């Protein structure tokens, strides 16, 4: 597979390490009253779609950036690649 890195251009997926669903960015609020349930869902339940999947890849043998890759799990076609840090900020994650 080839991942078209937003800064570096196309790179062999062998340079990357896969993590999983993009939702792993959305770590729940530990102080919420239902934090235990939210963390269980965050940690364990997945949409696991057959089709478009937004997922996290880490460019370990490259610039060490985490990416959010939009990839079809049936065809493996990749339609979009973003820096995960930008995605995280857009989702309102801060510090």
């Amino acid at each position, binding site marked *: 597979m080839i991942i078209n890195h937003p*800064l570096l251009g196309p790179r*062999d997926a*062998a*340079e990357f390490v896969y993590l999983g669903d993009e939702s792993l960015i959305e770590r729940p609020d530990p102080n919420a009253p239902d934090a235990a349930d939210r963390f269980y869902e965050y940690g364990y339940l997945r949409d696991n779609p057959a089709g478009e999947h937004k997922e996290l890849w880490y460019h370990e*043998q*490259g*610039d060490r*950036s985490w990416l959010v890759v939009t990839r079809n799990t049936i065809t493996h076609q990749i339609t979009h690649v973003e820096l995960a840090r930008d995605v995280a900020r857009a989702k309102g994650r801060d510090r």
Partner: protein
Amino acid sequence: MAEFSLKADAFLGGFHKDYGTVVVTEVTDRAIASFALPLGGEAQAEKTIKSVLKLDLPSVGTAAQSEDGATTLLRLGKDQLFCLMDKQPDGHGAHRALSEKLAGTVFTTDQSDVWVSLTIRGPDSLRALERICPIDLHPGSFEVGALARTVMEHLGTVIIRNSDDEYTLMSASSSAKSFLHAIETSIENVL
């Protein structure tokens, strides 16, 4: 005068070998400092780097070199650069001096001994590198000054094109011997 003194050893003992159409040389006097651009302080950092090194920040995936060729900035990532300083056998000292000049506008780390550096040059360099380097090194895709951080024979590697037929390769110093072995095997296999 201290009772004991320490001796610096080049990771590959100052390796140099001429294979005819390829020459491999270990670079033993290069200091390497990494720069991290502070969050929110990127503009200031860029300004300071420019005034200290007389170099613009290269874009990600490319290198910039000072006029005298002694200093090269590698933009490895959005907020990370390597500054290569030639003819600086005391890497730590060079790093400290530079770090003081940058005066807190950039977070720096001495990387001199993290890496082993080799240059590979000659008309058959490309053919040899083809055996281990996944990056497209065709001059149209990887111009002089281009750089890439990738993996070769299971080892993380930074590759820089210095000229038409000369490249610098940097890989982890602890696996320097295996790295050299990979390069030598490639050369022997194509010659």
